[in-house]
Structure formats: C-alpha cells, structure tokens
C-alpha cells in the first residue's frame, strides 16, 4: 500500500518519461549489473566444474568442493592444508595492508600541507602535478617501474656507476619493484580524500591549539586526525581494496616466486579453465576484504556514508 503510494508520487513528481528513465536506469544498474552478477557468481562458485553439456543435468548439484580445495588442497595430497593458495592469500592481504599504511604515511603530510596552505600558484601547480600520473595507464605505470628496477634499470646502473654495488640487485625478485609499483598505482586515491577533508578544517582551531601551547604532534592527534578521519578511512579503504584486487602490477612487477591472489584467480579462469573454482576464489577475496574493511570501520567508528566523499 505504502509502496504503491510512493511509486505514484515518484511518477507524479518526475513525469512519466523521466520517471521511467530513472526507474529503468537504476533498476538495470543495481540489479542487472551489480546484484545479479554477484549472486550468480556466488551460485556458480558452489557448483561442480562440468563440461557445458552436463550443465543443468543431474550432476549439476551444489558443492563445497572449491572452498574445500582452497583450504585443504587437492584430495590425496600430502599436506593437510592448501599451503600454496592460503599462503598467497595471506601474503596478498598483508602486503595490501602494508602498501596502504605506506601510502597513508606518505600522503598525510602532503595532504595536510596542501589542505592548510592558503592556496596560491605553487599549491595549484602541485595539485596539477598530482593529477598527471593518474591519467597514465595502469599498465604503463607498472611498466615504468619495471624500467627503473630492471637488471639494467636506472637504479642498478646508478649504483654500479657509483661503485656501491658490483652486481645488479634483483629488485624484482626482492619484491621492491612490486611494492613501489602498487603503492604508486593507487596513491592518489589516498591523497585526495584526505586533502578534501583537511581543506575543510578551520585553521583557527589549529592556531588556537598552538596558542594554548600544544606541541605539533598533539595538534595532529587531537584536532587534525579526528577531523580528517572520514577522509583517511575512505582513502585507506579504497587503497586496500584496490591493492588487494590489483592484477596488472603483480603480473608485470611480481617476482617469479611471489604470486598475488588475483593471479591465481586469473589462472583458474584463463589457463586452468576451471571457472567455478575461480569464482569461488573471487568470492573468498571479496568477502574477506569486505569483512576486513567493515571491521576496521567498526573499530574506528566510521560510517559507510563517509566513503567516497
């Protein structure tokens, strides 16, 4: 009853044509593009890996096979757990966390500086410079790091010329290239939310605290950071999720011994040809990432509405 009244008012307010457009576009987006594909993937991840003719046949029943595989590994293997996949998963999450904190530490001072300075030409140029890398292709950004950190890359050449080392350091194997590339890839999604929030902070508050004798770290701890919390959380959430879900940088910069979890998913889809297992792994990645983000947000008392501002 109430709903139909709501719909009637909706059409009355927007007119038939506009109302239909709004309704169709939103329904298409929310259901056909967002919700149903996710549900379909969830459903798919509980099914056996079957050849197409057998799909929908008697063998097509629900199973936990792929999730079991993720935890326990292939049946009949010696190890009691799937050490490879679990290890990659945990390492991916830890590395993503590390990259997020690194980006936060790098960005906070700059965001504070940009947000609290009076503007002017210099600041505008800095902001302009910040935007440039963002428009450059993700692949090319990773590629740049490959040039820099390669065996005959500029850092190795420089170090050898300076006589610090004799043989080139394998930065790619040591994952230095990977972490710098990942930190680089999404650094702007960290800096702009924090910058936007700090910009709205009244400068008088800081001056008042300063006049009252507060040291600089206390000013940050008690005034700036609490005010910037939505921006910080928004930036951290985005960087963490995107880093954990990154595919390009690990594929290009990852060492031979280090695998990113998304690469395993990619392999199940493109090389292994086991779609349900890939879907199950994708579900695992998605749900664990969401769980981590939600619990951190709960911990720091941040609302979902703050994200994306």
């Amino acid at each position: 009853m109430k709903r139909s009244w709501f719909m009637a008012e909706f059409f009355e307010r927007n007119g038939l044509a506009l109302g239909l457009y709004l309704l169709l576009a939103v329904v298409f987006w929310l259901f056909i593009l967002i919700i149903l594909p996710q549900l379909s993937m969830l459903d798919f991840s509980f099914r056996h890996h079957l050849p197409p003719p057998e799909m929908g046949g008697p063998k097509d029943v629900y199973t936990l096979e792929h999730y079991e595989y993720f935890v326990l590994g292939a049946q009949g293997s010696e190890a009691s757990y799937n050490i490879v996949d679990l290890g990659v998963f945990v390492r991916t999450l830890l590395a993503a966390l590390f990259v997020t904190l690194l980006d936060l530490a790098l960005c906070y001072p700059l965001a504070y500086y940009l947000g609290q300075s009076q503007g002017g030409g210099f600041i505008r140029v800095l902001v302009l410079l910040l935007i440039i890398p963002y428009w450059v292709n993700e692949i090319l950004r990773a590629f740049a790091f490959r040039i820099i950190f390669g065996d005959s890359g500029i850092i190795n050449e420089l170090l050898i010329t300076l006589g610090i080392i004799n043989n080139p350091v394998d930065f790619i194997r040591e994952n230095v290239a990977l972490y710098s590339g990942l930190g680089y890839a999404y650094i702007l999604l960290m800096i702009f939310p924090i910058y936007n929030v700090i910009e709205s902070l009244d400068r008088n508050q800081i001056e008042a605290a300063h006049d009252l004798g507060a040291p600089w770290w206390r000013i940050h701890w008690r005034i700036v950071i609490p005010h910037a919390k939505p921006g910080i959380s928004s930036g951290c959430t985005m960087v963490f999720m995107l880093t954990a879900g990154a595919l390009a940088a690990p594929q290009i910069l990852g060492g031979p011994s280090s695998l990113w979890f998304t690469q395993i998913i990619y392999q199940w889809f493109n090389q292994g040809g086991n779609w349900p297992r890939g879907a199950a792994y994708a579900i695992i990645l998605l749900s664990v990432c969401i769980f981590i983000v939600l619990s951190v947000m709960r911990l720091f008392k941040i609302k979902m509405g703050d994200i994306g501002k």
Partner: protein
Amino acid sequence: MSSGKPLMKIFLGVYLVIFFGYLLGPLIIMSVTGFNSPGFPRAAPWECLTFEWFEVLYDDKRIMNGIKNSAIIGAGTVILSVLMGLAGALVLTQIWPKLRATYYTIVIAPILIPGVVLGISTLVFWDRISVMLGLSNDSFLHNGIFLTILGQSTFIASYCALVFIARLQRFDTGLTEAALDLGATNVQAFRKIMLPFLKPAIGSAAVLAFLASFENYNTTTFTFGKFPTLTIELAQKVRYGINPSISVLAFLIVALTVVGAVGHEIHLRRKQLALANGAPIGRIGGGFQLPRFLRGNPAAVAMVLLAFTGFSTIWFANAYSPEVCKSEVRAEKRVLQQQLIEEVRQKRLRQKQQKDRQGPDIFGPEKSLVPKATGPATKSPGQGTFGNVFNPQNLDKAGPNSGKQKGGGPVTNPGKSTFGNIFDPKNLKNEPKSGK
C-alpha cells in the same frame, strides 16, 4: 602551520622533492627511454637520440587496433555510465529516507569491489543468461565489446554518480518548484532547470568515465573476448617482450595529460579572474591581454613553454637524423667488439705459446713419445728417402681432406699434415686440457 621555522621548511622541501620524485620520476624516466635508441627500453647508458620508435608505434597494427577498440568501448561506457550515474544520483535525492543508506551503499559498492571480481561476475552472469536463452557462442552476449562495456559501466557509473551527487547537493530545489508553480511540466522543469545546472557535472563525469574506461585492465581482462583494448595489448606487450615504442606511447599520454590539465587550469583561472573582476568571461580572453595574464600565472607559462618545446621538438625531429649517431655507436660497438676479439685472440696466443713451451712437460710420457719420435723424423733430412711420399703434390691432396676434418692445423703446419690423421686430433683434444 609551523612552516615559519627554517628547519621545518627544509624538511618540507625535502619531503616534497621525495614525494614528487616518486610520483613523477618514473613517468619522466619512461618517457626518456622512448627517445633512446637501444632496442630494450632503458635510460641509463644513453646512446642516441632517436625518433624511430614513433614510427614503430605508428606501424604497430595491434596497438592501433587496441586504440580503436578502446575508443568504441569508451564511448559506449561513457553513454551508459553517465545515464545510469545520473539516474542513480537523482533517485538518491528522492528515495525513501529509510532506504537511503542501503541504496547509497549499493551504489558506491562497485568502486570498492575489486575489478577482477566485477569482470568475473559479469562474465559468469551473461554466460549463464545466454545458456538459459539457448544462444550460441557467437551471440552478442559473448561479444567482447558488449561484455566489456557492461563490466566497466558497473563501477564507472558509480564514479559518475558520485560526481552528480556532489553537484546535486548544491542544487536549490526551490528553482524546480518555482518552475512547476509557474506552469512548467515536469519534463520541462527537468530540461530547462535541472539539466543546465548539471551540465558541467555531465561533462566532467563523461571525461572521467572515458578515462577510467580507457585505462581499465582488471575488469576488461576477463571480458574482452576478441576485442582487446589498448590496455590489454599493452599488458601483453609488457609481459612478453617490449621495445621503446611503448615508452613513446606513455610519453604521448603524459604530454597530452599535461597539456589538457594545464589548459583546464588556465580555463578555470580565467573564469575565476573574470568572476573576481565582475567582468564577463569573454573579455578576459582577449589576445592582447595575454602577456599580462602570463605574468601572474605559472600554469600559463608552463603551457607556453610546453608548446614551445613541442614545436622545437618537431622542428628538431625533421632536421635531425639519428643515423649519424647510430652509426657512430655501432662503430664504437664494433671497435669494442674488435677489442674483445683481439683480447681473446691474444689470450689464446699466449696460452698456445705457454703450452708450446710447457708442452713436453705436460704431455703424458706415452703420448709425448709419439710426437717426439715422429717429430724429428719429419724434420730430419732423411725425409728425402721417402721421396715421393712427402711430395708437395701429395700434401695438396691431403690438405683439403684433413682440413675439413679438423681445424686449420695442417695448413699452417704442412709438415705435420701427413701424420695429421694420426695425432692431430689428439693434439687438438689435448690442447684445452693442457691449457687449463
């Protein structure tokens, strides 16, 4: 801010240099490698300034095809995402307050969902739809362009929605109400009031959507099918063998970005200046005012400088030929190679001499007996007794034969060649052993 202290200022300066070095350094180095002549992109041992990689890039059919596919997909994504994002934002302003938080969460969730997951879910979902409908594998549901547009629009529409939501927050609903009171229909009110108000947001959302679509990899890599976009092609090139034409592409993108950003900045500046002076925008842009305008605007200065360097580069590219330098480098390399070869030859010679001197000592007694016994025989005047056997004519016959079999030994030392088949191979085999 406590930037008044000099120490703090130094820290700040160092920090800014490090930060922007990290941010821009890779791009600069990568761009530089596009002008260096070695076949693998590298900046460090600078060889020759060259523009050949521009041609290589231009002739690369896969890259060009990728750009075409990216443009098609980008256009589709822009249309779809702007339409959906706009609708999403407008609905947010009207939706039931109780539902608003949930709705907002769903709308922005695609930004946070990893692109890989979006790509997979799109692929799986449409695959199942086509199975359900009983369509063949060639149907449009399996078309790479169709799937990629849908997959990308899923999250790019969220970006657009955020842009529209930010703009709508500043909208005065009184305007629409006034229009409706004055007798406008809903559609009229939307077209005459809401759309003009949202126009700048539509523009920036479209630009944002196109760029996001153009550079997307994670989602596209699962959905592209037979239509690889530029990013996909680049990724494959970067993973399996590369040449600096990719650096040239990066350079072009960076240059375009800089020009675009600076141009946008100048445009904004003009507008602000005009507003501050209370003057209509058109008056500020007068050509004769440009010099004064330049003085106070570093961005404009940068723009002019950039244009200048751009033109001088083009002029230089026409006037300059890298061939001279390249042949020089080649010659240098050849000299270096010659030196290396010479060194190796010298080393061999020295080893040989050493071996010749040490030869008798190193050779085992049984083995050394043979050459010792036969050696004098060849040199001895008694040779004559054998007469015809050791005839030079015989040598000529034997020479090519044994020469084919083993090295040039018989030619340089014809006296041995008669015995060549007997102990030359042994000697040759012993050589490296004794050398070491």
